[in-house]
């Protein structure tokens, strides 16, 4: 088991990224009961926005200056697309049967992929992402973390803690909770619920962009279709944690990341299971976990039973 610390670290790195994306799914669902299937593509455009920002910057610029600018640039792109999708695609369909916005979201997801594929220069191939300086840190003999991976391990808790602080203590945060619990009555309090919905999309978009940058650092490149599987995994994480619950989204992401990491590393050691190990099976184990949770705890790890909400 001398590989265990490394596998746990890998799981946490992957899980932090899932968690960051999952928060966008869960916040939007919590407030408008919409599964925004285009959210994976918002994550992707965040990655491309950050890459573009880097490419515009002068050559040889220090990553300490480039990184914050990349986060701003990628964040701006992702937030604009997320808010634009809400304003022009989802808001006109509010009050329509729930299938309509869902199909719209899937269509938007494909449209965004194709738009990047067609219009971003050289997007048919993976676009090389900059790396963070520092190389690998040897924490112990059994544990090595790349500086690019360290980024998400710091960014995810910072994002999560800021969001929790914002929701719990700010006036807008309280208005968000009220809108999630009862949008009609929230309006009777004087809350502009449309504004709250826009804020939820914007926060989700920004967190997705942070995850997009983390993906670029970890994988070394961004691709036009990177949002598909990542989005599906993050959606799984949101359901796993209890959809509508922001802490659940982060927890679900971490659990999913750890389960994937540990399953790929150790399942082959179980007698008779040797052909089921390896990276190729990672998604299989992730979705089996989802099915198990849905069977035995359909409200998710931190979700409340629907009866509690009445």
């Amino acid at each position, binding site marked *: 088991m001398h590989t265990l610390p490394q596998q746990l670290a890998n799981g946490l790195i992957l899980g932090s990224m899932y968690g960051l994306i999952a928060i966008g799914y869960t916040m939007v669902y919590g407030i408008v009961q919409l599964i925004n299937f285009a959210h994976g593509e918002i994550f992707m455009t965040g990655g491309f926005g950050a890459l573009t920002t880097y490419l515009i910057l002068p050559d040889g610029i220090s990553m300490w200056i480039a990184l914050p600018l990349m986060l701003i640039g990628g964040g701006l792109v992702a937030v604009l697309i997320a808010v634009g999708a809400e304003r022009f695609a989802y808001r006109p369909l509010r009050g329509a049967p729930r299938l309509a916005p869902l199909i719209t979201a899937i269509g938007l997801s494909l449209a965004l992929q194709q738009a990047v594929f067609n219009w971003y220069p050289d997007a048919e191939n993976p676009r090389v992402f900059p790396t963070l300086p520092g190389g690998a840190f040897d924490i112990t003999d059994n544990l090595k973390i790349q500086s690019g991976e360290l980024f998400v391990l710091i960014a995810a808790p910072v994002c999560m803690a800021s969001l929790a602080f914002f929701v719990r203590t700010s006036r807008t945060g309280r208005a968000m909770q009220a809108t999630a619990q009862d949008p009609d*009555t929230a309006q009777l309090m004087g809350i502009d619920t449309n504004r709250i919905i826009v804020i939820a999309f914007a926060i989700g978009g920004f967190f997705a962009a942070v995850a997009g940058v983390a993906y670029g650092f970890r994988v070394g490149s961004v691709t036009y279709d990177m949002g598909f599987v990542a989005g599906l995994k993050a959606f799984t994480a949101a359901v796993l944690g209890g959809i509508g619950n922001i802490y659940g989204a982060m927890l679900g992401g971490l659990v999913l990341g750890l389960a994937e990491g540990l399953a790929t590393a150790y399942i082959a050691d179980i007698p008779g299971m040797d052909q089921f190990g390896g990276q190729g099976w990672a998604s299989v184990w992730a979705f089996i976990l989802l099915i198990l949770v849905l069977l035995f705890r359909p409200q998710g790890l931190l979700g409340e039973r629907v009866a509690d909400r009445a």
Partner: protein
Amino acid sequence: MTALLEVEDLKVAYGKIEAVKGISFSVEEGQVVTLIGTNGAGKTTTLRTLSGLLKPLSGKIMFNGQPLNGVPAHKIVAMGLAHSPEGRRIFPRLSIAENLQLGAFLRKDSAGIEKDMQRAYDLFPILGERRKQAAGTLSGGEQQMLAMGRALMSQPKLLMLDEPSMGLSPIMMQKIMATIAELKAQGTTILLVEQNAQAALSLADQGHVMEVGSIVLSGTGQDLLHDESVRKAYLGED
């Protein structure tokens, strides 16, 4: 003197079904006006339209000299019209204090908000004792108190109460009605929707009887209370 609220030929429809078929009434400052009638008469629809949650088909709503037509719900509160909705609709996972603070969402005077929270706790001591507790854990009657307290937190010029006695025990119902009487005595203007016609009419300066979307009878509370047809239809006498 013009009335605080003036409703003229108001029509509201859900799709093709007209739920309110052209009603007119007014509420003067300091008055308690009640709309009574059976389920489906259009009382709740009327209140939800006044507070902006539903858009009227036609008709005119003037509040404090300004038209309410086309004004979004969150701006109507700012104009001084508070609505304590049917079914209480408190925010179950927020605390009692947080629910009350949300009632004062648009106010900036934190000292005044603090004072009004104290006033709500004086009116309903049980809320003060449990201020940190999640509102969803309160009993039905306590939730009704919270809903009323929350609506009062916006310092409304007109307080609309939708079925405050619904689903409550007789003792709790008396308590809620006594509170409404107390608010009236303090000069609060109230538009009260009730199925408990006896209690509502005893309190009201003006009453209107609604049947399937129309006002069929209007008068002072006392007149209606002694009206033969009202007694038969709503007060359970033969």
